[in-house]
């Protein structure tokens, strides 16, 4: 994947003499120092990042962290005080007014926190707006707008006034308006923050589904870490105008870069962050061709596992449990094949842990299958719960240290 959007040392200072504040920043002065020395407010203090094509890049921060300023600098609704924004290799910061407009029309579209729908236009006309600024003829833009409205499930509301719609529906219109211009980059400024929790969860799910189809490059702003973790391919945590950590959801939660990040991650739903892949262990599978009941029992004892999977010609044949094998060994025969349980739980490596609780209830380790249906690893039920219980500020080794304590 190529780099779609690159930001280099972006700075925004609100005040009379931004250049002076930029120099102070370069000398390593802090935001507070600059405020006391010059009275100017530093909104964003030197942020670098790059977003890959087709990626959802989430910037998460509390209010006042500069995240809204940051996203507005990408399409220059707010002029950066210094730094560079590069889209597909072209600098948008150097663009003159015409070129900037072309960038905004052809490459960027934005979705706003409070929807920003035009109240004097119908829903359809709102969706047409971006096409209208481009000069698309009325017939064509109408067709396109209706198509987009159908995509977000609001085809029946095309001629209604935006005020007749609920918040969630209004934001769907906002999304349709942004998608109607078929932008390469979607800028989303806290799009779901103003919605009720249930609607918000709905919209998050819909965004993920849409993204699977459309593969847009998305910069998404939020103050909700759970939302960031659900949506973000990569997440940047922003504090006081700069990024304190950039990484995947799992990296942020398992290795928080600072106490600030750790404080955030403490209360999040770890089941929605970690996947089967993060807790699976090597399968140590038995092979029906070479292993016998006896070797199976020995291996389980050595590994300390209650059950193992059995493979035949590289495929899973089933699972065997220690107690079944042991009982069989005491009785008449010890045929490994006879003890195989064929009703075993399976999952994919990217399944989130919160979806695995039911699988864990079977008592067998969960088989993790790769894309070709091969056994990539197994997840022991207790490791799921260990991962959920792990404290944010400790690492993967938590479980052991806690046992000793």
């Amino acid at each position, binding site marked *: 994947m190529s780099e779609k959007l690159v930001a280099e040392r972006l700075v925004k200072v609100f005040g009379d003499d931004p250049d002076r504040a930029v120099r102070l920043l370069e000398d390593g002065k802090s935001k507070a120092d600059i405020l006391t020395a010059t009275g100017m407010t530093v909104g964003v203090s030197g942020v670098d990042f790059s977003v890959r094509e087709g990626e959802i890049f989430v910037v998460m921060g509390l209010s006042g962290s500069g995240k809204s300023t940051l996203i507005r600098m990408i*399409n220059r*609704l707010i002029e950066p005080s210094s730094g560079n924004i590069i889209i597909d290799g072209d600098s948008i910061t150097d663009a003159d007014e015409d070129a900037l*407009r*072309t*960038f*905004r*029309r*052809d490459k*960027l*579209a*934005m979705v*706003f926190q*409070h929807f*920003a729908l*035009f*109240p*004097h*236009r*119908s829903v*359809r*006309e709102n969706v047409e*707006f*971006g096409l*209208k*600024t*481009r000069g698309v003829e009325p017939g064509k833009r109408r067709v396109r707008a209706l198509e987009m409205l159908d995509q977000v499930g609001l085809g029946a509301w095309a*001629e*209604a*006034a935006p005020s007749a719609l609920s918040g969630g529906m209004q934001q769907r219109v906002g999304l349709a*308006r942004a998608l109607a*211009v078929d932008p390469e980059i979607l*800028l989303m400024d806290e799009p779901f923050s103003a919605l009720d929790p249930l609607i918000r969860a709905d919209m998050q799910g819909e965004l993920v589904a849409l993204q699977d189809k459309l593969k847009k490059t998305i910069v998404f702003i939020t103050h909700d870490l759970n939302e960031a973790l659900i949506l973000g391919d990569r997440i940047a945590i922003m504090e006081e105008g700069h990024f304190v950590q950039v990484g995947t959801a799992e990296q942020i939660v398992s290795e928080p870069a600072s106490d600030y990040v750790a404080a955030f991650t403490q209360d999040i739903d770890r089941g929605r962050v970690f996947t089967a892949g993060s807790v699976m262990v090597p399968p140590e599978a038995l092979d029906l061709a070479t292993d016998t009941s006896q070797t199976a029992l020995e291996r389980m004892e050595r590994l300390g596992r209650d059950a193992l999977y059995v493979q035949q010609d590289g495929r899973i044949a089933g699972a065997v449990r220690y107690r079944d094998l042991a009982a069989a060994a005491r009785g008449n025969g010890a045929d490994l094949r006879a003890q195989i349980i064929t009703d075993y739980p399976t999952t994919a490596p990217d399944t989130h842990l919160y979806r695995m609780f039911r699988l864990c209830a079977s008592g067998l380790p969960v088989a993790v299958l790769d894309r070709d249906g091969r056994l990539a690893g197994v997840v022991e039920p207790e490791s799921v719960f260990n991962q959920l219980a792990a404290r944010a500020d400790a690492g993967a080794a938590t479980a052991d240290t806690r046992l000793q304590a």
Partner: protein
Amino acid sequence: MWQPSDSITIPLGDWVQVFVRGWLVPNFRDFFRTIQWPVDQTLAGLDGVLNAMPMLAFAVILSAIAWGTAGRGLAVFTFIALTALDMIGVWSQTMTTLAMILTAVVFCALVGVPLGIAAARSDRFAAVLRPILDIMQTIPPFVYLVPIVMLFGVGMTPGIIATIIFALPPIVRLTNLGLRSVPENLVEAAYAFGATRSQVLWDVQIPLALRTIMAGLNQTLMLALSMAVIAALIGAGGLGLTVYTGLGRLDVGTATEGGIGIVLLAIILDRITQALGEEGRVRRSPSLLETLKGFIRPGGTRTGDDDLRRPAR
């Protein structure tokens, strides 16, 4: 006891006299005569049309406009009021006054709306404009009647020029206010989608400011009407002249005839322009067109569907 005027006096009156009579009038009289030309033409056209129109035809048309904008009640009132004015015997004066007022309002809008837009776009321009508007609103009209007579002469057109000066401020102020109170996030959204400044102005700002701008137009209209009598002092005709004549002869009857005319005209025009400003909100009564449709389509009640389909503009 000594006071400053014992030592130094400021001959302000002389200065102004010299400035206006000695410099402004000789040098710019022709210029001012030229700029009154479009006002002259507009007035002549409107006055000709209004006075040539049969009284009943005009009453019907204005009632229809009242119905279309403000509803049945005002339409009935308009018709009765106009009939009464005709019966009182001030019909042609009423038409002349209406022509003057409309001319003044047209030019106020032509000048005032662009000024308001410019003021909304530039804080500096707004800062310069504000004291000028303040002066225009507070200075007594009698003060500028004299220079107007010197520059433009006497008659209808100078009266309209005085009316324009007096009635201009509200539409400038309210255009400025209306544009500035368009929610920032909508303007931002329009720019984010690559709109040009003029697209933002025409597609977003003006439509959303229209209610406020119409309120300004309404105020301007009312101020213009209130100048009718003062404008008569420098030769404007119409209802103002009727009042002024009554005043000169201490003829209460004539003055009242003119006064009633102005008041009735004011009520009609005020209600119509107010209703224009409220357009797009819920209408209290069916529009004229719908009512007429109802006449030819008996039993055909409105389903309310039309309102849903009608795009909100």
